Structures are given as structure tokens and as C-alpha cells.
């Protein structure tokens, strides 16, 4: 198969799986997951073939694989859609295909395939567990299978389709289509347990919040189209077009067209990648099933936001050489840096294992945005890849922990929150595989030196930041310190020490379908980093060529320069990660009390603020939501709709009624109906007259027929002869 066709076919298997499951195999659970995983494997294999071919090609960055078809006629020209695979796409496809496949596999175990059906399980609620007798006849509560098992696989299949479509698009339009499909899937999957009010509102919140970003993004796309007449990356990112956009001034004073477009598109990323101030939906999205959190809100969908800005980086950075930094880059640097520290601080005070990870995701995405803001194109991409692996690993690990805790909850029967880290502790012994893999993920997140992938990617960001914007570097270092601290806090609270609840005491290792993805992702969480070791790194630099920098860097027409080695970022990196980890271990090494956080007292009032996430939700509630509700109710509903529109309608209706009555009484009743009645009556009367002919006696009919025949014969004879 040639590469072009292969690319076109990549997104198809998950889409077909979605339709097939929805239409045919909704009742057959094993078949549903087999189809979904089969589709994921097909896409994975296709991706691997494609990556292999791409790596084999020399100067791949200059000669991306491309194919397009005419889609919509726009007057004389055609709106073309197509696919493109360049180095950036390759690395993105690499982590997307692997994490998607792993998460599909993980979902089987997470949704308790093979367990009995729960007696009280309803669609729309998490399974309540089923009573099952063991070999000795003891009845006990065990995990029960998800009632909407097939639907879940259908949704994640559709989601995978959206992600593949987004990645392989060669234009903004199909990218936006994939983007919105993922938005829809995110909504559906966050609200997967739609009978839970919190899940419902979280789904709506996520959908509405990301829509804000998407609207601006769509505006940006429209502006690009009107300015350049094309949406293809190849054309809008070509130097000539960029130059034109930079020269052109925009309606907003002080901004070039390129600047305005960049900011608009960056707002889309803010929504999708949950950057401040549109970050509020991501922590709430943890209401969905954990594979969803891992897939959508760590590995792929939020990465899509970063992918977009990476993809559009030439546009965003257009005009670097002119005077100062272009406005989009400033915005990215500011917002990324702020989000990184902002989210990291919130993460310190969260007790929910998944929420901590959610804030850390926001924070890490902030790192990437900030890196782009300072021009670290390769660094951002590198961190995007490594983050996808280790964050997926962390989420899946947390899911495994929760699953084990649920097992404990069912076994002991005391209903505690299985996601609260203060109810855990000592799980290291109970769930060894989960512990080790989670620790790998945690260390990667914290940037544990040399071994983990996170160290190398974060180090590269530091280097870029230090080189270009020292202020950004300082803030990022601070947030990295906090990151290491809360990571260690999480590991300590969850796995180390003694169990702080019966449930934790009875926790159990999860099935192989869940642990196998953890191990595989753990492998990648370590090894991915070795692809991008800087050449001039002390001692080990140059042992492995800095392949990543070469490969991804070739995407850009202007090859990014290699920044010379400087000891400050390296030392900073070592200090913050090791220091944060050490601090975290010191503070949380022996937590015995279930509820009291050791940092509560030192932080004081600050802790409460952090615990409540700087009161952002409340702020939005007061400032945006309640006024808009009030506006809707009082003005739009009561006045506009009820009084003005309804009143007009009623008036028209009344007038029409009067006219209608007039027509009915003066035209329809006497003339039309009268005529109809006349016809009917005449027919009836005629029927009465002729009725006696219909005697029912067949011979009389025949006589009549023959007489008539004879009569007509005679008449015709005399007429015609």
C-alpha cells in the first residue's frame, strides 16, 4: 500500500468500529471491545508502518507525504481537504497510536469485563458491584461490569477517529472537524455516567468552556481564509504568506493580521488545553471514567491544543526578526508561565488523586505553552511527547489505584471515597506493579534526573527559557519545584507508609489488562527521553544522537538553532527536581491522620485558598454565570420572548383567526361545502333511483349486459354503415 492511501485509511478503523458497535454489537460486550481494539490495532499498525517509512526517508521534513482531494466547490476554485505527514505529525502519531491502544486495552479491565452483572446497576451510573458466591459459598460484593460497556468502546472509537483526523489533517478545516469531534466525545465521555448530577454538570461545563475557545479559534480560521484564501498549512505557513500577513494590518489597533490570527487561534488552544483562565473544566472532567481522563484529558485531547500551536508556530512567531516579540508569543509566554505556577500551587492542596493529576496536567501544558512562547519549538514538542506518555501512565496508574481501592471498598463494606489520597497509604505492598509504574510516571513528571523522559524534555524547556527569557525561566523552575513536591506528596500518601483505611488494607492488584498498559507506558515514559539528549550535555551527551531535535526541527523551514550548553539550567533542573522530591518525602513520610494535611498549618490561610482553587469557580459563577442566567430569565425570557415575540405572534394569530372565520362563514361553508354536498346528494339520489337494478342475481346482470350489447351493436351499425 502506498503511503498516501495508508494515511487516508488511518482514521477509518475506529470510525467503522464506532458505527459497527452502535448499530450491531451493542448487546454483545466481548464483540464490542474486540472490534474496538481490533480497530485500534489496525490504526496502530498502519501508524507504525508509516513511521517506519518516514524515518527511512532522508530529509523527510522537506518532503512530507501529502495527498489532497477537491471537496467543496467555492466558485471557480475548490476547497481542498487532504492529509499530510511531516515529522511533527510522525511524532504525534507515535504517542497517539500507542496511548490510544493502551487505553483501549486498559478499559477492558477498568470496566470489569468478565465480572458478573450487578443487580442494581443502571445505565448512567457507575457499577454498584454484584453479589457473587465464591467457591466456599460465601457471598461477597465484587466489582460488576459496566452496564454501558459497548457504548463506552463506541465513544472512545469515535474519539480515536477524531484524534487521528486532527493529526493527519493538512489544513485547518479538517483539523477543526477532528477538534470538534473530540470536543463532542469529551462531552459524551465526561457525562458517561449521566445519572450523576456532578458528571452531568461537569460535561456541560467542559463543553461550554471549550466552546468559548473554539469560537475564537473559528474566528481565527475564518480570518485566515479571508486573508489568504486557503486553509492548507502548506500555503498559510509558507514564508511568502507569512510575510504578507505580517505586513497586513488588522482591524484591531496595534496588531498585525498575523498577530490577531495567532491570538485568536491561541485562545482556541487555551480552551482545549485548559490554560488559565479557561482551565476550570479540566479538574471537573475527572468525573468521567479514568481511561477517559487518561485519554482525553492527559494524553491526547489536551495535547491537541498544544499540537495546534506547535503546528501554527510559524504563524504565531511570524515577525520575530522585526522588532520585539510578536504579541501571540508574548501571550503564550505569559499565560503558559502563569498557568504553570498557578496550577502547580493548586495541585499541592488537592486530596483527590485524579484532581492532583488534572492540575498537574494543566501545569505541564503551561510549561509547553511557555516553551513555545520563548521560541522553544522542539522543546515544546519533546515535552508534549514525553508528557503524553508519563501522564497517561500516571492517570492509568491512578485508575488502577482507584480500582484497587474500590475492590477494597466492596470487600470491607465501609463506604469511603476511593479517590481520596488520605484514605490510602501502604498500597506499595498491595499493588506492586501499579506502584512501580506509577513511581516511574511520577519521577518522570518530577523530572528525576537522567533516567526519566521528563527530565530531558523539561531540561530542554529550561534551556530555551534561560536563553531567551530569564524571568520565565525562574517562574518555571519554581513551578517545577512545586511539581516535584506534589508528585512526591502523591506517591507518599498513596503508596508509602501504612494503610489509613480498611479499604486500603483490602486493596488488590488489578487484572493484567490494566497492568500491561501500565508497564508498556512505563517503558516509554523512560525511553522516550533518550531520543532527545542534547549533544553537548556533560558526559553522556553525544552517546545517543539528538535525533529528536534533528527530526522535528526539520519541520520548520527555518531550522531552529541549537542552543549551546549552559550549566545554570542543568543545575536548576537537578536542584528543583531532587529538592522537590526530597521535600515531599520529608513532609509526607509518616502521615497517620486521615484528614489533616501536614502543610495545612504552615501555609495557613493560603492553604484554604489553594484548596478552593483560588475561588475561580465561585468567581466565574458570580461574574459570568449568574448574571447571564439572570439576564436570560429577566430580559430574554420574560421580556423579549414572552412580551415582545409572543405578543406579536398572538396578535398575528388573532388577526388570522378573524380572517379565517370570515372565509369559513362566507366562502367555505356556503359555496365550497354546498357544492360538495350537492354532488353527494345528487349521487345518493341517483343511487336510490338505480339501486333496484342491482339485484344480486347474476343472470339478470348478464341479460342486461347482453341487451345493452345488442342495442349498441344496432346503434353503431346504423351510425357507421
Amino acid at each position: 500500500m502506498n503511503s498516501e492511501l495508508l494515511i487516508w485509511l488511518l482514521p477509518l478503523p475506529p470510525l467503522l468500529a464506532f458505527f459497527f458497535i452502535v448499530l450491531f454489537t451493542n448487546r454483545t460486550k466481548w464483540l464490542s471491545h474486540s472490534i474496538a481494539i481490533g480497530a485500534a490495532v489496525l490504526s496502530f499498525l498502519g501508524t507504525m508502518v508509516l513511521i517506519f517509512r518516514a524515518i527511512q526517508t532522508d530529509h523527510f521534513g522537506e518532503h512530507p507525504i501529502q495527498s489532497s482531494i477537491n471537496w467543496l466547490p467555492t466558485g471557480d476554485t475548490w476547497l481542498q481537504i487532504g492529509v499530510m505527514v511531516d515529522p511533527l505529525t510522525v511524532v504525534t502519531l507515535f504517542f497517539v497510536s500507542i496511548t490510544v491502544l493502551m487505553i483501549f486495552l486498559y478499559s477492558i479491565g477498568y470496566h470489569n469485563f468478565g465480572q458478573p452483572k450487578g443487580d442494581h446497576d443502571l445505565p448512567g451510573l457507575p457499577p454498584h458491584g454484584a453479589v457473587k458466591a465464591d467457591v466456599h459459598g460465601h457471598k461477597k460484593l465484587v466489582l460488576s461490569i459496566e452496564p454501558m460497556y459497548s457504548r463506552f468502546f463506541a465513544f472512545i472509537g469515535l474519539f480515536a477517529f477524531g484524534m487521528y483526523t486532527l493529526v493527519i489533517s493538512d489544513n485547518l478545516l479538517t483539523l477543526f472537524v477532528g477538534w470538534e469531534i473530540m470536543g463532542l466525545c469529551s462531552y459524551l465521555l465526561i457525562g458517561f455516567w449521566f445519572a450523576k448530577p456532578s458528571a452531568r454538570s461537569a460535561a456541560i461545563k467542559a463543553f461550554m468552556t471549550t466552546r468559548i475557545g473554539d469560537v475564537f479559534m473559528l474566528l481565527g480560521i475564518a480570518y485566515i481564509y479571508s486573508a489568504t484564501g486557503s486553509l492548507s498549512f502548506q500555503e498559510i505557513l509558507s514564508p511568502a504568506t507569512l510575510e504578507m500577513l505580517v505586513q497586513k494590518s488588522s482591524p484591531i489597533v496595534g496588531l498585525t493580521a498575523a498577530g490577531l490570527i495567532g491570538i485568536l487561534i491561541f485562545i482556541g488552544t487555551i480552551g482545549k488545553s485548559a490554560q488559565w483562565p479557561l482551565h476550570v473544566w479540566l479538574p471537573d472532567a475527572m468525573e468521567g471514567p479514568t481511561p477517559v481522563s487518561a485519554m482525553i484529558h492527559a494524553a491526547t485531547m489536551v495535547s491537541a491544543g498544544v499540537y495546534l500551536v506547535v503546528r501554527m508556530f510559524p504563524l504565531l512567531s511570524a515577525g520575530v526578526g522585526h522588532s520585539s516579540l510578536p504579541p501571540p508569543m508574548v501571550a503564550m509566554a505569559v499565560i503558559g508561565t502563569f498557568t504553570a505556577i498557578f496550577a502547580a500551587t493548586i495541585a499541592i492542596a488537592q486530596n483527590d488523586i485524579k484532581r492532583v493529576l488534572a492540575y498537574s496536567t494543566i501545569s505541564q501544558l503551561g510549561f509547553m505553552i511557555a516553551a513555545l512562547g520563548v521560541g522553544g519549538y522542539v522543546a515544546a514538542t519533546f515535552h508534549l511527547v514525553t508528557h503524553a506518555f508519563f501522564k497517561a501512565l500516571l492517570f492509568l496508574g491512578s485508575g488502577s489505584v482507584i480500582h484497587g481501592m474500590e475492590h477494597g471498598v466492596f470487600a470491607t463494606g465501609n463506604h469511603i471515597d476511593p479517590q481520596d489520597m488520605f484514605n490510602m497509604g501502604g498500597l506499595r505492598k498491595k499493588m506492586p506493579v501499579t506502584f512501580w509504574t506509577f513511581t516511574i510516571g511520577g519521577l518522570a513528571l518530577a523530572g528525576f534526573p537522567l533516567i526519566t523522559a521528563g527530565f530531558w524534555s523539561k531540561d530542554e524547556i529550561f534551556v530555551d527559557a534561560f536563553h531567551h527569557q530569564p524571568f520565565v525561566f525562574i517562574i518555571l523552575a519554581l513551578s517545577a519545584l512545586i511539581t516535584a513536591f506534589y508528585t512526591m506528596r502523591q506517591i507518599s500518601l498513596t503508596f508509602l507508609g501504612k494503610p489509613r483505611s480498611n479499604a486500603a488494607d483490602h486493596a488488590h492488584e488489578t487484572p493484567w489488562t490494566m497492568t500491561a498498559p501500565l508497564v508498556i507506558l512505563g517503558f516509554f515514559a523512560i525511553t522516550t527521553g533518550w531520543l532527545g539528549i542534547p549533544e553537548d550535555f556533560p558526559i553522556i551527551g553525544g552517546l545517543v544522537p539528538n535525533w529528536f531535535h534533528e527530526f522535528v526541527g526539520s519541520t520548520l523551514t527555518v531550522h531552529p538553532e541549537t542552543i549551546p550548553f549552559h550549566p545554570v539550567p542543568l543545575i536548576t533542573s537537578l536542584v528543583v527536581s531532587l529538592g522537590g522530591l526530597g521535600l515531599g518525602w520529608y513532609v509526607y513520610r509518616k502521615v497517620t491522620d486521615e484528614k489533616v494535611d501536614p502543610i495545612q498549618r504552615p501555609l495557613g490561610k493560603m492553604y484554604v485558598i489553594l484548596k478552593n482553587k483560588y475561588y475561580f469557580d465561585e468567581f466565574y459563577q458570580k461574574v459570568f454565570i449568574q448574571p447571564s442566567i439572570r439576564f436570560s430569565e429577566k430580559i430574554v425570557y420574560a421580556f423579549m420572548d414572552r412580551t415582545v415575540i409572543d405578543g406579536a405572534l398572538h396578535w398575528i394569530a388573532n388577526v388570522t383567526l378573524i380572517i379565517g372565520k370570515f372565509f369559513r362563514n362566507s366562502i367555505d361553508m356556503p359555496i365550497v361545502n354546498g357544492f360538495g354536498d350537492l354532488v353527494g346528494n345528487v349521487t345518493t339520489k341517483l343511487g336510490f333511483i338505480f339501486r333496484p337494478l342491482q339485484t344480486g342475481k347474476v343472470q339478470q346482470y348478464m341479460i342486461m349486459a347482453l341487451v345493452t350489447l345488442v342495442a349498441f351493436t344496432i346503434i353503431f351499425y346504423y351510425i357507421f354503415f
Partner: protein
Amino acid sequence: MIPLSWYLVFAAALFCVGLFGVLARKNAIAVLMGIELMLNAVNINLVAFWRYLGPQDITGQVFTIMVFAVAAAEVSVGLALFISLYRRRGTISADEIDLMKW
């Protein structure tokens, strides 16, 4: 030889007698017999025309055989109908079978 007209007049007479039977008889089976008479008159015509106008062409005889087949089919179905009717209504008088009247 016998002139053709004799056969034709005879057939016409037989046909009209049969027609009278069909139109005037009360009993449905008698009506059926009238139809048989008419069919026979047709057969005589067919065979007579074959003999007098085209003996080298076998069509007349073949169509007589067709008429036999049609008559047999008609009688079997007709009688089955009458027997079924007799079972339900106790009569096969064509006068009394008038459910379809006004």
C-alpha cells in the same frame, strides 16, 4: 357432401339454446350445463371450419382440445364452488345467491 352452412346453423342453434339455459335456469349446475352446450357449439364451429377451410392446418383441432381443457377446468372449479356454497347456504339456486345485491 354436407354443406358448411348446416354445421354453422346447427352450431348457432346449439349456442343459443345453451345461452337460453345459462340465462334462464335457476339451478347453478344447470347453468353450468348451458355453458357446456355453448362451448360445444364453439367446438363444432372450430372443427367445421378446420374441415372446410383449412384441413392442412391443424389449428382448429388444437383449439378444440384447448376448449376441452378449459371446459374441464371450468367444471371442476365451478362444481367445487357449488359444493362449498351448498355446504354453507344450503342452496345452489342462482336466484337465491344474491348477497351482493343492494
